[in-house]
């Protein structure tokens, strides 16, 4: 087994190139689903791996609650540097799980606070128009398990005022698409995955971007005009609230931010609806290679995790 045991922990390094490829060559819908699935699988594998390392590395320590069989020398021999890896895995695993729980709690808190803020407004499940001169528009997902709190759209008067009728239609179509396609679930999944393993962070921003693109495409289809949708996005961005921490966001300037990329994509032709580029083009070949590489790495990650698990099971006296 050897160093392959650690593979699931470093495999998420492949997330960045895969995210780039997916953004360039896939329809945003396919891209969102693929990248979310990838993040979930890699995140789970990496957590599983940490858990097993912890068990193997620390089972021989006196006074621990784990079965003695797990500290068998043969088991430890299967993991290089078992003691160090095992002890390191404890704080890592604890940090990962704590970060996950904190992210989940924050998510629910923001959701509840937003619904409370909007509670007094008419139009219980529809659009909430806020009398605020600042321009903003948000899709507020419903609270799970609370039928009385469905998803709604919160938009400020400032935003509505600065768009014309057609652009407003595009704005609402975009926000409705977020709610209808349940984009918040993808976002939460990648968020939790990146809490578990920070190497998955590129997938988080990639999925955030591809859900926006997905909603843009849905909006363009609903209003039947890509150029109009592009204009709505662009004008809304030009009047919207400035970044809360401008210094950080602008650090690496030359790379275009999400909004110009979305507008450029809307001004370009419709992305192909198929989820895969044709096999004989360079893009198709690159995608195939990337997919094969990902599949192989995910498989070996799973393999390492399963192997560790089997070894432990064999060593457990039952």
């Amino acid at each position, binding site marked *: 087994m050897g160093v392959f045991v650690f593979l699931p922990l470093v495999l998420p390094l492949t997330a960045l190139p895969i995210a780039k490829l997916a953004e360039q060559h896939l329809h945003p819908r396919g891209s969102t689903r693929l990248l979310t699935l990838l993040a979930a699988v890699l995140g789970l594998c990496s957590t599983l791996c940490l858990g097993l390392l912890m068990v193997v590395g620390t089972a021989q320590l006196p006074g621990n609650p784990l079965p003695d069989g797990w500290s068998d020398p043969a088991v430890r021999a299967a993991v290089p540097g078992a003691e160090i890896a095992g002890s390191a895995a404890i704080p890592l695993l604890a940090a990962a799980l704590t970060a996950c729980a904190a*992210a989940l709690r*924050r*998510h629910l808190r*923001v*959701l509840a*606070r*937003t619904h*409370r*803020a*909007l*509670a*007094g*407004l008419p139009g219980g499940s529809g659009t*909430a128009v*806020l*009398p*605020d001169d*600042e321009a*903003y*528009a*948000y*899709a507020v*997902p419903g609270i799970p398990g*609370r039928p*009385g*709190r469905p998803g709604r759209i*919160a938009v400020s008067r400032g*935003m509505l005022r*600065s768009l014309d009728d*057609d652009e407003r239609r595009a*704005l609402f179509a975009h*926000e409705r698409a977020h709610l209808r396609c349940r984009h*918040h679930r993808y976002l939460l999944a990648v968020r939790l995955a990146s809490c578990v393993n920070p190497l998955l962070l590129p997938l988080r921003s990639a999925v*955030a971007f591809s*859900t926006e693109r997905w909603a843009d495409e849905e909006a363009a289809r609903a209003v039947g005009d890509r*150029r*109009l949708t*592009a*204009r709505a*996005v*662009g*004008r*809304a*961005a*030009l*009047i*919207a609230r*400035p*970044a*809360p921490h*401008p210094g950080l*966001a*602008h650090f690496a300037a030359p790379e*275009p*931010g999400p*909004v*110009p990329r979305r*507008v*450029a994509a809307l*001004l370009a032709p419709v992305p192909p609806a198929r989820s895969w580029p044709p096999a004989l083009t360079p893009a198709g070949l690159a995608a195939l290679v990337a997919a094969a590489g990902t599949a192989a790495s995910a498989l070996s990650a799973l393999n390492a995790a399963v192997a560790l698990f089997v070894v432990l099971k064999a060593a457990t006296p039952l």
Partner: protein
Amino acid sequence: MAGKPFGNARRRGQGQLEAQVLAALHHAPGPPTAAWVQERLGGDLAYTTVMTILSRLHTKGAVTRERAGRSYVWTPAADEAGLAALRMRRLLDGETDRDAVLTSFVSALSAHDEQLLRTLLDRASAEDPVPGADPEARGG
């Protein structure tokens, strides 16, 4: 559950209570006292609860108060929608990771992005001028 109109006061959310108090203030003939508000709300709220809600609204800037004799009289500064906007604004300013939960229509632009975006939009409208949209495009 949620549709029950007048359940136990405790089961009503804070936002809902604030909205009810504000609505009562709006319907008052003049600046009322807290006791008047309590009576108006139907009596299942304790006086202290009404006072708490009023002071919370005061902190938010949604009501103003003036001393009249030994107690305060209260005037609404914002209606229910205005209060919702205040709460929303506080949320947007206060929660740093709201972006992970609420999907914003547009994210913030850097100076570089802004320039790039203007170029893109100009080029788009030059290629295919949309009737009636141009004059407004300059307004933003």
